[in-house]
């Protein structure tokens, strides 16, 4: 920034010192490759006199003999040259790669990485674009310590970003800022063209995020898009194509095994559901053996292309690009397409004024998997009878409901063909800004930012007929149209100056944001036709959600000799989300650092320590992710009461209001050490953090005497503490043509609930309703214990005999001989639970903590090497010490109704004396065998080869021969995503997204219900640069 100020100043001053011995020096500034550089600042050292190179890179300046010229330009290494007697000085400047990487975007400004006192991770555009992804969020995986990504595997499916673990019960998404413009949701990242991104900075500790005040608690992701380099016109073209698939299948019963299974369990069948299969002892499935999982899965295709053009001069710079991405899912009838266009430009209009703009348009379209009747596609694929054909000879869909047995799973091919879920999403984000240089070191920037999206949801469920009883005579059409518009104005006043060795930078910001979301939805059911896609005479409703935010921010950065570092910041937010008394919040932060290596301690040199920095930070941020007008209850008008024979509107308060509602507050501490050895060829950093979130919003139970209809009020009652360590290690090596580096990180985030309610008698909250299949809750919050731990019984095996039940729990607990107050009744073949409290019966009191879905640590290793034209890179990501509740076990083994199951049921308990781990078939509801227990808990640790790329770039001689000067670079590559996954987890994929409740509050994490596997991807691509 300082350089810019200086540059602009000299652009305008135009006054030379006309002294006696003055003469003119001229010359040309070029890069190492010979290309000329316009816009280079040239300054006579110790004066205010200078000039700038023109479009051809030439300059001329009046100098004295003993003057020294300073040549500087952003991104290039500054050079000082003594004039001497020369009249022509040509300069070759070098790109300052190191320096480029070392600037960190910290929100409302930039900062040198070397003097940073806060926890910020930077991911370069090159890393992000290493392999094609549906959205930028996915590309963040494994790229920064403490940043965790989960994606649900379906194309265009939600990508969840968690920074330093989960520390709220509500929305834990980080704030996303693109070129200073706030997006609404981290999910909106998917409409940003990854190849337009120059870099992403992830702000992790409160001292970094406190500048975003009431929105900083979950961390901040700052995306900077590229805007061209003066003097270099570059055209980059990328195209790629490939396939994705998964060979994972559950081993389920085939037709013979299934029919045999039905005949065996018919003995226990209470309601004759399998009778017709039994009634026809010759029924053998008519030779049909449908593998329903194979019908659901397919090999999907991926393709994409990007073009990016950038360039500039000393008057301005620009960048624009288009991008297309198209991916078929590995389930039939799923797809995601994305198209982007972006254009950025910046120009100097006056001596001290610079204006610029960013604009990005995105369109995406998603065909998502159909969840039919609350059942995931995978559930139906497992449970369908194998003797049913997909289609019969006459073209009708086969149906399980053809009365042969009680199986009610639905034909998934029929479901996908008769139901369309199409969501298209169009977005615009952009800004225009002006930068005024007021005096040296003092600049004012004003920016108007806009983010808008338009979403079209189209769901059609068409009437259908099947061979069995299942049919639907009506066609249902559901449509939603949403519009979101956010406008923001940011005014920034920056003063940066150095006094001797004192460096000072002061930033003052005033910002306002105005948002409005509106939605119209309409619905129709008709039996007239299944052909139409639009609605006539539907039922409609609409709503809108406005929001306003108004803020001030002040920040001071001070350092002495880039050795002793201090940063102080304070933000004041005023938000419409809260009641008037609580609208204003103050978010302070402070951080200090000491660059020990600058002290010149001898022992550091002796140990080859090139960099050593210690830092500490403390700050307060907020999380304002609560619903609109959550503090005041609305008036419902549907408490009808008949008066005078007519039913009249009756008004009553809809839920409880909490006039004291405020944002969640996170106090975060960070302590870090950064080390560089052997001229920074080895780098390491360690951060320790303690995040204490207070006043987390929970629907707290209230006294029913309050009359509050919901029985709960959203209150700031929860406290959660997250502690963790992040370690990053890197090694760079260059030996001749062979260059390689390896980089890795490991992070822990231990989240513990500290408080749940103001009422002392409420010591736990049971969450995680996954019904079907479970009527009980799966997870629990309790003070002193990990967030969302699994809560249930401990399975000790399967009772081999009735005698074993008697021996364990006594006669009274035997199902065939029920006694009073005996708790759950068992018999031989049932799951045996541990009597935790030792009272001789199994009751709900015997439930305990049975698993922790929060990992011990997560890690990633990134390796890359290149030799001449060949390059290889590899990214391994992993999670260790994590429990998953595998609800698929219920799909595969529950055996309390008629469905197809895993071949595991072939070894189920069948007669007294059987010793097995699979309980008997038990045709009842509320079957204790299927109660939430350790039966479902598995270790979900894994290591995954997320990316493997091998590329080859044609050498320059060849290019020169083939294309003359037109083509600068040609690279071919092949790559694979998710090629290898090492895990003991029995489900398809151990990477599980959280389970959200209807109110947006997380119900549980690490719960696998019919999760689609991450596909294995193979892609071949071509990159050309002109």
């Amino acid at each position, binding site marked *: 920034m300082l350089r810019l100020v200086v540059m602009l100043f000299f652009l305008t001053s135009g006054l030379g010192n006309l002294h006696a011995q003055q003469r003119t020096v001229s010359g040309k500034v070029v890069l190492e490759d010979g290309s000329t550089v316009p816009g280079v600042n040239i300054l006579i050292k110790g004066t205010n006199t200078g000039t700038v190179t023109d479009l051809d890179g030439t300059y001329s300046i009046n100098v004295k003999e003993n003057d020294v010229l300073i040549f500087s330009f952003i991104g290039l290494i500054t050079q000082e040259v003594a004039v001497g007697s020369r009249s022509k000085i040509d300069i070759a400047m070098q790109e300052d790669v190191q320096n480029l990487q070392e600037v960190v975007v910290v929100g409302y400004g930039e900062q040198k990485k070397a003097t940073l006192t806060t926890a910020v991770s930077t991911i370069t555009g090159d890393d992000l674009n290493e392999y094609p992804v549906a959205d930028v969020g996915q590309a963040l995986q494994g790229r920064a310590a403490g940043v965790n990504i989960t994606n649900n595997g379906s194309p265009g499916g939600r990508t969840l970003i968690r920074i330093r673990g989960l520390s709220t019960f509500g929305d834990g998404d980080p704030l996303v800022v693109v070129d200073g413009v706030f997006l609404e949701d981290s999910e909106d990242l998917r409409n940003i063209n990854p190849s337009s991104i120059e870099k992403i900075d992830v702000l992790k500790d409160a001292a970094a995020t406190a500048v975003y005040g009431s929105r900083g608690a979950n961390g901040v992701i700052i995306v900077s898009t590229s805007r061209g380099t003066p003097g270099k016109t570059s055209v980059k073209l990328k195209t790629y194509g490939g396939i994705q698939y998964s060979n994972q299948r559950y081993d389920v019963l085939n037709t013979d095994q299934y029919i045999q299974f039905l005949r065996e369990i018919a003995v226990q069948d209470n309601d004759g559901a399998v009778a017709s299969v039994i009634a026809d002892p010759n029924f053998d499935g008519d030779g049909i053996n449908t593998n329903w999982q194979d019908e659901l899965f397919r090999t999907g295709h991926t393709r994409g292309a990007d073009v990016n053009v950038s360039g500039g001069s000393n008057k301005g710079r620009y960048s624009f690009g288009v991008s297309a991405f198209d991916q078929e899912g590995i389930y039939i009838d799923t797809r995601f397409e994305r198209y982007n266009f972006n254009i950025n430009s910046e120009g100097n209009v006056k001596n001290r004024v610079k204006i610029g703009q960013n604009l990005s348009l995105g369109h995406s379209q998603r065909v998502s998997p159909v969840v039919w009747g609350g059942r995931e596609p995978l559930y139906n694929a497992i449970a369908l009878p194998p003797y049913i054909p997909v289609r019969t000879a006459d073209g009708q869909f086969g149906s399980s409901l053809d009365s042969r047995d009680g199986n009610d799973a639905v034909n998934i091919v029929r479901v996908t063909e008769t139901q369309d879920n199409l969501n298209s999403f169009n977005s615009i984000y952009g800004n225009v800004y002006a930068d005024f240089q007021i005096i040296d070191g*003092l600049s004012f920037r004003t920016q108007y930012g806009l983010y808008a999206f338009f979403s079209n949801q189209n769901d059609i469920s068409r009437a259908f007929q099947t061979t069995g009883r299942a049919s639907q005579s009506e066609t249902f059409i559901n449509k939603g149209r949403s519009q979101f518009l956010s406008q923001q104005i940011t005014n920034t006043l920056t003063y940066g100056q150095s006094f001797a060795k004192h460096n000072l930078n002061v930033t003052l910001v005033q910002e306002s944001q105005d948002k409005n979301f509106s939605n119209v939805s309409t619905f129709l059911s008709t039996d007239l036709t299944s052909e139409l896609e639009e609605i006539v005479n539907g039922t409609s409703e609409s709503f809108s959600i406005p929001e306003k935010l108004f803020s001030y921010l002040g920040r001071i950065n001070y350092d002495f000799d880039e050795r002793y570092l201090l940063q102080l910041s304070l933000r004041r937010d005023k938000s419409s989300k809260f009641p008037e008394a609580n609208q204003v919040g103050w978010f302070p932060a402070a951080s200090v650092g000491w660059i020990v290596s600058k002290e010149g301690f001898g022992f550091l040199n002796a140990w080859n320590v090139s960099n050593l920095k210690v830092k500490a930070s403390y700050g307060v941020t907020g999380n304002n992710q609560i619903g609109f007008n959550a503090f005041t*209850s*609305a*008036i419902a008008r549907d408490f009808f009461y008949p008066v005078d024979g007519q039913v009249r509107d009756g008004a009553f308060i809809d839920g409880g209001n909490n006039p004291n509602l405020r944002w969640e507050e996170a106090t975060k501490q960070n302590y870090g050490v950064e080390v560089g050895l052997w001229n920074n060829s080895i780098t390491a950093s360690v951060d320790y953090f303690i995040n204490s979130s207070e006043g987390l919003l929970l629907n707290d139970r209230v006294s029913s005497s309050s009359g509050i209809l919901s029985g709960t009020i959203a209150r700031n009652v929860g406290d959660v503490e997250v502690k963790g360590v992040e370690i990053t290690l890197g090694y760079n090596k260059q030996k001749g043509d062979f260059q390689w580096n390896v980089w890795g990180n490991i992070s822990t985030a231990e989240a513990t609930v500290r408080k749940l309610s103001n009422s002392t008698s409420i010591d736990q909250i049971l969450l995680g309703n996954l019904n079907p299949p479970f009527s009980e809750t799966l997870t629990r919050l309790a003070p002193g214990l990990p967030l969302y731990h699994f809560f249930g019984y401990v399975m000790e095996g399967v009772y081999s005999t009735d005698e074993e039940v008697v021996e364990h729990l006594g006669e009274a607990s035997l199902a065939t001989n029920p006694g009073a107050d005996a708790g759950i009744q068992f018999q031989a073949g049932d799951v045996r639970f541990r009597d935790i409290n030792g009272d001789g019966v199994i009751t709900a009191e015997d439930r305990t903590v049975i698993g922790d879905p929060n990992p011990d640590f997560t890690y990633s290793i990134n390796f890359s090497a290149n030799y001449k034209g060949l390059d290889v890179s590899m990214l391994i990501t992993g999670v260790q010490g994590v429990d998953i509740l595998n609800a698929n076990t219920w799909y595969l083994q529950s055996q309390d109704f008629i469905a197809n199951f895993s071949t595991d049921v072939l070894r189920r308990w069948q007669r007294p004396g059987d010793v097995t781990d699979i309980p008997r078939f038990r045709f009842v509801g509320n079957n204790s065998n299927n109660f939430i227990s350790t039966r479902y808990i598995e270790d979900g640790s894994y290591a995954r080869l997320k990316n493997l790329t091998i590329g080859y770039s044609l050498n320059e001689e060849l290019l020169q021969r083939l294309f003359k000067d037109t083509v600068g670079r040609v690279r071919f590559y092949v790559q694979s995503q998710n090629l290898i996954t090492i895990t003991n987890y029995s489900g398809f994929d151990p990477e599980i997204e959280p389970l959200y409740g209807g109110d947006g509050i997380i119900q549980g994490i690490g719960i696998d219900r019919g999760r689609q596997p991450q596909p294995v991807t193979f892609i071949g691509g071509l990159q050309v640069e002109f």
Partner: protein
Amino acid sequence: MKYRIYHIILFTILSLTWVSCTEDVTLENPNQLTQDTFFESLQQIEAAANGSYAQLQSSGLYQRFGYIIPDSFSDEMQSGGDANFITSWSFQLTPTTPQVDQYWTTCYRGIAACNFLLGGEAKMRERLASGGVDFTEADINDAIGQGRFLRALYYFHLVRRFGGVPLIVDNDNALDIPRSEEEQVWAQIKSDLRAASLNLFEKGSTEEGRATKGAALGLLGKAYLFNQQFDSAKFFLDQITGYSLLPLEEYNDNFNESGEFNDESMFEVVYTGEQDGSQWDQNGRGLGEVTWHAQEYTGWANIIPSQKMIDEFEDDDPRLQSSVLENGDSHGPNNSFTWGGGRVWYKFSQLYENEQTQENGDTNARLLRYADVVLMKAEAELRLGNSTMAIDYLNLIRDRVRLPRYGTDEMDSRGYPVNNPDQIFEALMHERMIELCAEQQRYDDLKRWNMDGSEITVDDNGTNRGYNADIHRLMPIPQTEIDANASMTPADQNPGY
């Protein structure tokens, strides 16, 4: 330099001016009405009043437990075995019994609805004073009268079942309220009803279904009777005008659907009988409001008249046929149907008009009728020493059903002489039990007379019902309330639970 300083000042001013214009971030809710903006029109005021009635329709009150609980406590009833009745009938309610919680919660939701209406009074009067509104002083008074009547009614339901309960009269101060003394609750009830009696319209001057002056006075008299303040009871009951006892020919109109809002009826909970799928957890919300009274008492026979109840009827009392059905009895329009479902209650059964009972019951619950007022007046006069007046009132009830008057040889020979206050009281007890049977009066009458312990003893089979007046006069406070109410501890539970 001057030029530069000027620039700084300019920019600072520019940004600051811009700031001051937009600092206000408060927004109005475009989707729903809020408490701030409510009470702007007569429609809204009436809607708040209507919403205050709606909780009476809920399953916690007159869809089910409002009659199940007090009726099954009484000696009028023999259990039919249904779980919803057997726990209360055999006095096995615990703090976690769902019906206890539902009854409690429903009453308090009703109170919150009333408090919402009453809390808007200042806004209504303010807006009336500043003009341009479509409502009048009288509209406000009527709405406030209804709110106070209904709040008293909900507290009346609470205080008789739970004793001293949290007293909440302001929604802004409704969380974590400790239990009050029982007298404070009664004082609130009486104060609300006095105000209601001054604000409300007389029956006929207001719409059918709304609370009236007469209803407020009747309930107020009853409250004083429960507090043994007989002079006050008499004072307010005597002010009731405009009601009459129906002739015997129309007596069934007190219990059937076609006779709703008759001249004897003083307050009813209105049901439309429309089902909207929410009837298993009816909470006052939505269009569908049904009462299951007919199914519970008649169709399913979950609770039936006890032998003691049947025996109490004089042989020639026509009220027996209006109240109870036995096998072979005829019922329905012109007695065109014959009953074969065993001994059941006829009152409120739908069978006056239909062959069978249905779940979507639309017979209004009659909470107060003039016969009760007449009997309360008799009781007040008796307690105040005016035996003649007491007997005269009792005989109004006798005259209507064309039975011999008290004080005649006939009645003396039937065992009901009225020669001294004790004997008159015996007659009063008899008359209330018969006239108001299965109308949720008997158990509280017994409690009021301190006779519950001696009357509620054994069932039809001679088995002890387990009633202990020291414990069961009050139900347990729901555990959910004790858990979630920061001002309550387990020590606040009623004794014995």
